[in-house]
């Protein structure tokens, strides 16, 4: 199998396998609610990181604003449903729209900055937002937040169990992954990779650099907004602590561990940062230390993350299988 054929094979098999696995996973987990909780959280992180992998992984623009858009989506939906009594699904739509519009407005001035300056500006945006949320006590409940957020429902059916919420979150995650995968494969995806290599070269090839960056930033904001809304209606309360800068940094860590230039990387990273702390919990005081060391090791020894290491392993295995097959036929 040539590299191109194996990639085409992977493109066809992976989505089918992914959908199948998402479908049967609750059965494999034995319907355990605590395991489903973890799977829901992984799905939510995955949605945020799909957006981040478009902006940062493919487009090379390090944004630390994902927590802010996650918070904007969460508060929009929480306020819509509690203050206005709107149905939660409408709250989700409002969350996506609000995050998207703010992202689009913010994109024009902020995306002129690059590298660490962009990171700083997006970080500052997050800090400003948190302050606004904390100080507007009448609207947002300040540091205490809002309680008793309703569960989303379609007609009489409410997504109020871990199992039903799991399917809701992962339907959104798979849809987002499908859209992102299409974009990454398209000429726009190539243009994004091109501008992250050299903006002057890309612009000279006709890539409208500002427009491409703006769209990816906006799309990333929409996805983070939806994920934030999904999160707060799952845990049924909202407080500003969930949307601090450390959340943005966690998202960047996910891509660093999983691999920043593929969706598989975003997924593997989301699994790693969610599952590892739980596995390490038995080490008690040392759990964070061990997590930190593992993170360092991943960044130092797996430059393309878990996904990169996985695909080079597969490549090596297929090459050695092919050469041993050729030897056998000699």
């Amino acid at each position, binding site marked *: 199998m040539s*590299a*191109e054929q194996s990639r085409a094979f992977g493109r066809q098999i992976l989505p089918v396998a992914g959908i199948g696995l998402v479908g049967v996973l609750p059965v494999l987990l034995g319907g355990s609610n605590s395991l489903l909780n973890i799977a829901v959280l992984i799905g939510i992180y995955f949605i945020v990181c799909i957006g981040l992998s478009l902006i940062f992984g493919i487009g090379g623009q390090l944004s630390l604003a994902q927590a802010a858009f996650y918070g904007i989506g969460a508060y929009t939906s929480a306020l819509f449903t509690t203050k206005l009594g709107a149905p939660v699904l409408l709250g989700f739509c409002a969350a996506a729209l609000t995050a998207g519009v703010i992202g689009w407005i913010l994109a024009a001035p902020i995306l002129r900055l690059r590298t660490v300056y962009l990171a700083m500006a997006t970080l500052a945006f997050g800090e400003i937002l948190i302050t606004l949320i904390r100080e507007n006590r009448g609207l947002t409940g300040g540091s205490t937040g809002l309680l008793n957020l309703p569960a989303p429902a379609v007609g009489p059916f409410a997504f109020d169990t871990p199992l039903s919420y799991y399917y809701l979150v992962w339907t959104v995650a798979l849809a987002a992954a499908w*859209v992102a995968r*299409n*974009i990454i*494969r*398209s*000429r*726009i*995806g*190539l*243009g994004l*990779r*091109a501008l*992250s*290599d*050299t903006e*002057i*070269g*890309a*612009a*000279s*090839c*006709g*890539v*409208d*650099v500002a427009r491409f960056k703006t*769209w990816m930033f906006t*799309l990333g904001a929409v996805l983070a907004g939806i994920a934030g809304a999904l999160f707060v209606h799952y845990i049924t309360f909202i407080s500003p602590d969930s949307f601090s800068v450390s959340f943005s940094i966690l998202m960047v860590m996910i891509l660093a561990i999983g691999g920043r*230039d593929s969706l598989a990387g975003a997924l593997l990273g989301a699994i790693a940062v969610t599952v590892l702390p739980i596995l390490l919990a038995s080490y008690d005081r040392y759990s964070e230390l061990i997590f930190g060391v593992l993170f360092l090791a991943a960044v130092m020894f797996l430059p393309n993350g878990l996904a990169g290491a996985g695909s080079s392993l597969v490549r090596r295995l297929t090459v050695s299988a092919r050469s041993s097959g050729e030897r056998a036929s000699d």
Partner: protein
Amino acid sequence: MTEPHILSVEGLTRRYGGVVAVDGLTFKVRRGTITALIGPNGAGKTTTLNVISGITPRSGGRVFLSGEDATDLRADQICRRGMARTFQTPQVFRSLTVRENLVVATMRLGTTSIAAAAFRTARLRKEEEGFRRSADEWLDWVGLAHCADRPIGSLSFGQVRMAEVARVLASKPDIILMDEPASGLSRAETQTLRSVLLRIRDAAITVLLVEHNMPFVMSTAEHVVVLDKGRFLAEGDPAAIQADAAVRNAYLGRG
């Protein structure tokens, strides 16, 4: 075609602080020719290309493409008007394969609708298949068909230069600007480049090149424009330029 000059530059000026890199430069490029822009080091050749192609903002003057004002357009807008360029240090996309590098350059053709990309419409798929095929044709044209699937970083320097030439062709330009295309090439590679340039001209694409290698310029270009200290010094066919006393003085540094 009503306008015989595809590119005309009028009074172009670029200052860096107190330094005037390009000073009131005026020249025209005839459609379908290979024109060379030469001059001693620091004459402002690369700055001129950068201003024309929308990479460096001008301080004054105007640029016209096929008679239409193209002053102050961004690099990507210039590209969409049918002008493509190469760089002295090739600006290739190292994370992409050779073919993908060429597909990026087709950006001015067809749709770049984000919605079409997000839902991968049948029309988009068909269009992108066409761009990949035309990329392969251009690679074949410059003799790099066998490298299409390789990461561009794995190519030799000469091959990267040639891939960059193929990339500008993939955008189906009317005019190509080239900054020092022969620098860093072996003698054999320079010969190949020369024959590729002549074929580009025969395909009715205009070429404007900045080049140090005088034998290459004199054997390839039909028209030569000479700059000195940011100003227009002389123009003419290669033989006339070689015989021009002012040009010799500028190059040899005599007053």
